[in-house]
């Protein structure tokens, strides 16, 4: 494992160098994606400013929720989305074989040889919005609450990376798994709104088998002192445990799929 970790900065350097070959396209992608999210958030802001709140959440609280959602997703997805979305193609073309013949962890190689710096636009927007919203929501910040907020963010990023790993790893056995990303992004869209506005069955789903409730709503609600449906007082510890638990499940699934990798023939 130590050799795998030692290789990480070199893999990242190679990937960044590759992206820099097309730096104009990269800058344009950053700008376009940030603009796209900003437009969506503006629409939500206008609606909230007109109607007052959404499920008891004001615009500034929603801004914190949206920024947390985007930042946690960007941190997790930069480690996982394009890498595991493209794994299906790698399996089909047989190029995944080349990952397995290197004397390093295939997960580390795959993740860091494709570490997506395309999320810079997302991160800049999310940090900007978060910096504004934390001053507006009236939270009495303490060291403990700040630590919880950061740990919840990391846990949420872990949930994202673990789910993406599990979806991508499925392609090692089934060859195709891209359709599962559509399901992920369906729940991911819902996860940017307060969970309490959805019917109970959907709330249960988003706190269990599709645990994207932990991506933003649960940690932000705990921070704001708002009630969390179904979890109640357990919401705080549950949001911190969700990430490591998802990573553990993701690692087991990844290992199982690597052991059962069949290639696509040829």
């Amino acid at each position, binding site marked *: 494992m130590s*050799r795998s970790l030692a290789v990480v900065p070199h893999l990242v350097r190679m990937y960044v160098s590759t992206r820099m070959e097309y730096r104009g396209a990269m800058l344009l992608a950053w700008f376009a994606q940030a603009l796209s999210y900003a437009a969506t958030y503006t629409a939500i802001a206008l609606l909230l400013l007109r109607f007052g709140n959404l499920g008891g959440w004001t615009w500034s609280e929603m801004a914190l929720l949206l920024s947390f959602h985007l930042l946690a997703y960007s941190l997790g997805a930069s480690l996982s989305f394009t890498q595991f979305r493209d794994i299906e193609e790698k399996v089909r*073309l047989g*190029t995944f*074989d080349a990952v397995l*013949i290197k004397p390093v962890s295939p997960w580390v190689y795959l993740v860091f040889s494709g570490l997506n710096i395309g999320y810079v636009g997302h991160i800049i927007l999310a940090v900007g919005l978060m910096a504004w919203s934390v001053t507006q929501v009236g939270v009495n910040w303490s060291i403990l609450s700040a630590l919880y907020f950061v740990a919840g963010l990391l846990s949420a990023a872990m949930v994202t990376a673990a789910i993406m790993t599990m979806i991508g790893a499925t392609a090692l056995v089934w060859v195709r798994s891209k359709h599962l990303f559509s399901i992920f992004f369906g729940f991911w869209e819902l996860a940017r709104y307060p969970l309490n506005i959805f019917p109970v069955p959907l709330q249960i789903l988003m706190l269990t088998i599709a645990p994207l409730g932990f991506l933003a709503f649960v940690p932000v609600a705990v921070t704001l002192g708002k009630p969390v449906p179904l979890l109640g007082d357990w919401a705080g510890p549950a949001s911190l445990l969700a990430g490591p638990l998802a990573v553990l499940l993701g690692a087991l699934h990844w290992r199982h799929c690597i052991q059962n990798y069949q*290639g696509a023939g040829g």
Partner: protein
Amino acid sequence: MAIISASSVEKIFRQPKRQAGFGGSIRGLFSRDFTEIRAVDGISFTIQPGEAVGYLGPNGAGKSTMIKMMTGILVPSSGTVQVLGREPHTNRITNAAEIGVVFGQRSQLWWDLPVRDSFDLNRHIYDIPTARFADNLARLTTMLDMASYIDRPVRQLSLGQRMRAEIAMALLHDPKILFLDEPTIGLDVVAKDTVRKFLAEVNRDRGTTIILTTHDLVDIEEICPRLIMVDDGKLLFDGELKHLRQTLGSRRRLKLEFGTDPGPITLKTAELVTDEGAAKHFLLENEQTSILDVLTELGSGHDLTDIKLEEPNIEEVIRTFYQNKPALAGARP
């Protein structure tokens, strides 16, 4: 002690049964019928350190599957594979550090970056000491004539240049075994020749064990004294190339030229296969038949002007082998 051993190795792929047509595709969604494909079927062999072995077979014969099991990519369904005394799939990372693998059709170089960057990344991945890396890089650059393009992005290289770089990259860490999956596919004649000469030299001078799959029989002739032939997942032949012709009994070709067309000729010692009038082509009946036997049977009275005896080339031998394989299955030298 063998550097690689395979004992009764099987690899079975389980695939859903496909049904024809659109309706069949829909029915397939609800069907739990599977087809078992036996890609490798009870193969056993051993390879000693320093050997160069050609692994040959038609498409779908199970060549790549066997290479993937030896490199730890796939897990055998039954039987055992040992590489350097270890099971490759349970010791994949340790195994990978001591082998080199080249895929003819799947590049391991970073497409948009200079060749040198990919080499440098491998220095870190394989933890190659700086001095050894510099020595190996200099030697391989000279031997494979890469100096003119080592600092160019891979996307700008010809296929021949890229393949030389792939092979060099697989050798930078001094692997004990080099696996090559169709390394000359798509290369022009000159590039093929360079690659073959280099691989033969690496095997001869550095003692690197080489296992290569190929469709090009010249690769086998020039690099591999030993040949393993497979078909339908089964081992058909394992032995020295020079024994293949006699084992398979491929027939020598005899051409007789006459001053004038002597008309149809029927012989017991040779079978007439092409009749061009004054030139007639025969296949000798067996290894023991000599030209003298044929001439004796032919007798005098023909205006014979020239005789030419040709040994069957390796391609012809193998074509004959596969055409006659039901009768020859299990042949061993």
